[in-house]
């Protein structure tokens, strides 16, 4: 990526990024991967959300990927489990020139941060659905989805400036 014009480098990055995103999506969409990895992970997100809400004295029931409160139920699906943001982050880190170690460290730290943020998102959406249903759709689509992806992009940009380039330069 460091070779050639900036425009060519940008195009190469974008091509790699979109290709990686496509591969990640295909892998995640495969039946066995979805059933044995994605769905159990989503159930884990739901359980963690329920634990947090119960600790805030909210009466919560959990059935699979569905969180139920007395007046509201939320089915956490793909797109709400934080996996898509991790995919965006991983694709960007894979497309950017860096060492494997730097990529792994960035991905681990970034994924953990994204999942923490996503927990806040799901908890806040359940609370919003329970107490202010009229704002739920707007906040769900208009605000939280953008915030989680923006967080992933911000982490990538920070990583690329502070770690990836430094690591490569040191190695060179």
């Amino acid at each position, binding site marked *: *990526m460091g070779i050639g014009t900036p425009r060519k480098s*940008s195009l190469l990055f974008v091509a790699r990024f979109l290709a990686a995103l496509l591969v990640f*999506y295909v892998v995640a969409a495969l039946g066995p991967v979805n059933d044995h990895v994605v769905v159990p992970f989503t159930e884990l997100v739901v359980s963690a959300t329920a634990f947090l809400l119960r600790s805030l004295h909210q009466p919560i029931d959990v059935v699979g990927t569905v969180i139920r409160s007395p007046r509201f139920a939320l089915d956490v699906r793909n797109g709400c489990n934080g996996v898509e943001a991790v995919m965006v982050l991983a694709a*960007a880190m894979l497309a950017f020139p860096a060492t494997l170690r730097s990529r792994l460290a960035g991905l681990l730290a970034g994924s953990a941060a994204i999942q923490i943020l996503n927990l806040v998102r799901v908890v806040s959406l359940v609370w919003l659905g329970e107490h202010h249903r009229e704002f739920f759709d707007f906040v769900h689509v208009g605000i939280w989805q*953008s915030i989680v*992806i923006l967080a992933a992009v911000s982490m990538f940009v920070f990583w690329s400036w502070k770690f990836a380039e430094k690591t490569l330069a040191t190695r060179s």
Partner: protein
Amino acid sequence: MIGLAVWGGLSVPYTRLLASLSETVVRLDERPPVTTIIPQGTLMMVDRSDFPPSPSSVRLAVQSTDITFNLILLMTLFAASSRALSDRNVFGFAGAAAALVFVHVAAVVSFVKAYYALSFGPWSASHYGFVARHFWGAAPYFYSVVGVYGFAVALWWLFRPSSQSTPKQPVHARRTPQSAT
């Protein structure tokens, strides 16, 4: 918040534009052209004139805001630049936003094609082969789950001012030994 306001304010007129452009694209491979995409608020109702009239409950309704909300992400990414109002950043955003319209049209077309390829039993099977059914079946889901974000990020990366666009230190690091010799 500005991005949110612009997106919310322009949703209905943009849905009309999107419906019109998408209808034109879908009709490109139809002889005679039979698809109609009618905007209703932020919904796009899809119908075919060669099919018997159906109640609206069984017609495809594409929610435009589910497709277009990545405009907020794109605006925020450009707004986060240290020189957000510089000419290069503003023109870059304009170029990326224009390119995003094509992405949105492609997304609507993929929803319509998936509807045609998967929802009409024998008719779908006779008009869409194995590969086409799987391609059109997967395309809208890819867009909904990761593409909606991925395309916005890709366009931001491509159109943001070039001084920020590529890693610099690896280039210098590799060139230094050569320039020293």
